């Protein structure tokens, strides 16, 4: 039981929390602007490397570098919107998707050019895990879970309690009707990009803290983020966050030796679990797991 908790459930929750943040950002952009933003993974990467710059330049811990990561990622999203997506606002979703893929490649090229392909880390060294009786939890895992919970709470308060959040939800429901009621569409789109970029930067930095920095960092989890967003009902950030948690848990638990000491699935197949879940959801519940559940 303890092994399950320490080595599968807690890492699963941590991975799930990172997926949840990434998926919430993907879902938000989809809801307001109606396209699958393939640039999201590379915004995560960009944020993680921006944190690395702050860590190296200022000698701070990556947790303290989070605001730098966010501040460096928002302008990238705005620039991509000004250069590409803003000109394609009325284009078909597939056109926007492909252009976001192009923007993703551009971001990644800059990261490769500046930082090279070699994996790097924030230089945290080895930190002994915290012990609660027999329960072991890595300090970074505790921080990631707490940080993700805070970010999710902030997102919830923004969407549910503020006028700007209500405008974002109104745009997601019906853009023309939102315009008719006087919602400044351009401003809401700018805000949506800022929030999505912040979520991406936080998710990317957390993922890099938990693993390591590579130029493929964010792109490698992008499809899992989409799977989580679809799981939760695309365009619904809360559902996406729940979908992310479920997916992270499913991936980690898939290699637990439930039967006779052998892993249920070899860890190498872990990432396939996300896509198996995605295919099953698309076949049996394409509206998402939580739609119609209030």
């Amino acid at each position, binding site marked *: 039981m303890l092994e399950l908790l320490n080595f599968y459930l807690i890492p699963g929750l941590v991975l799930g929390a990172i997926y949840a943040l990434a998926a919430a950002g993907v879902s938000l952009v989809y809801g307001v602007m109606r396209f699958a933003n393939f640039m999201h993974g590379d915004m995560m990467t960009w944020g993680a490397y921006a944190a690395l710059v702050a860590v190296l330049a200022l000698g701070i811990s990556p947790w303290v570098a989070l605001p730098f990561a966010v501040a460096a990622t928002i302008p990238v999203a705005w620039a991509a919107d000004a250069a590409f997506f803003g000109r394609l606002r009325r284009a078909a979703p597939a056109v926007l998707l492909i252009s976001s893929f192009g923007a993703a490649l551009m971001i990644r090229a800059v990261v490769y050019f500046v930082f090279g392909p070699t994996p790097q880390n924030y230089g945290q060294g080895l930190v002994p895990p915290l012990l609660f009786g027999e329960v072991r939890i890595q300090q970074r895992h505790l921080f990631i879970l707490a940080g993700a919970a805070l970010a999710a709470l902030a997102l919830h308060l923004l969407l549910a309690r503020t006028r700007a959040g209500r405008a974002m939800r109104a745009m997601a429901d019906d853009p023309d009707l939102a315009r008719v*009621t006087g919602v400044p569409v351009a401003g809401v789109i700018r805000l949506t990009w800022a929030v999505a970029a912040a979520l991406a930067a936080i998710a990317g930095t957390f993922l890099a803290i938990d693993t390591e920095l590579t130029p493929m960092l964010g792109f490698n989890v992008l499809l899992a983020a989409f799977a989580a967003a679809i799981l939760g009902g695309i365009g619904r950030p809360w559902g996406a966050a729940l979908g992310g948690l479920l997916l992270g848990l499913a991936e980690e638990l898939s290699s637990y030796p439930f039967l006779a000491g052998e892993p249920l699935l070899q860890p190498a197949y872990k990432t396939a679990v996300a896509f198996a879940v995605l295919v099953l959801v698309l076949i049996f519940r394409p509206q998402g797991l939580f739609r119609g559940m209030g």
Partner: protein
Amino acid sequence: MSLLEARGVVGGYGEADILHGVDLTVAPGQVVVVIGPNGAGKSTLMKAVAGLVRVRQGSIRFGGEEIANRPAEGMVARGLAYVPQERNVFPSLTVEENLAMGAFVRPAAVAEGIARVHAIFPELREKRRVPAGSLSGGQRQMVAVGRALMLEPRLIMLDEPTAGLSPRFCGLIFDKVREIAAGGTAVLMVEQNARPALAIADRGVVLAMGRNRAEDAGPALLANPEIGRLFLGG
């Protein structure tokens, strides 16, 4: 002095014009009903006024200001509210949030506006925490009209407000239209349900093929045998 004055409006979607030079005048506090066969351009005319359809020629003046091709998001602040025929509520927002969207450009007016809308449509009070998407058609229409009334507009445009509603709700909506006009808000309404709509109208305008065909006081249009034969189904 007229509140809304459209002159020679030509426009439509993309390349194809639907309006071929339409005139329309609404005076303050008046109820004006636009009727005509399908494809006459009734809804397009409203969308042109609302800033959702491009006007290629002609002018649209509201309160003396030229508003043709101005951004749709600026209309509500001018006192021009628009209720589309379909998809006229935000389904995932609650009734109260939908109403609050009607005063989006003036947040300080939300509480007072909601109280006034509740006075007009008391049914909405008990539904205020319910997502608008789960309401009946008639209740949705109340939310949509209530949303448009939040800032006490000078003109409210209703695109087929009784479409798909039961006779009870149709009567209620027409009663409310008179009540709204009595409060000083002019009403411009497109209606398929032409007879009862003309009965409560100060003016009736008949459109066909994107052009004006006739215009008169509502009851006079109803009494006109040619109009009855051509546009009111005998």
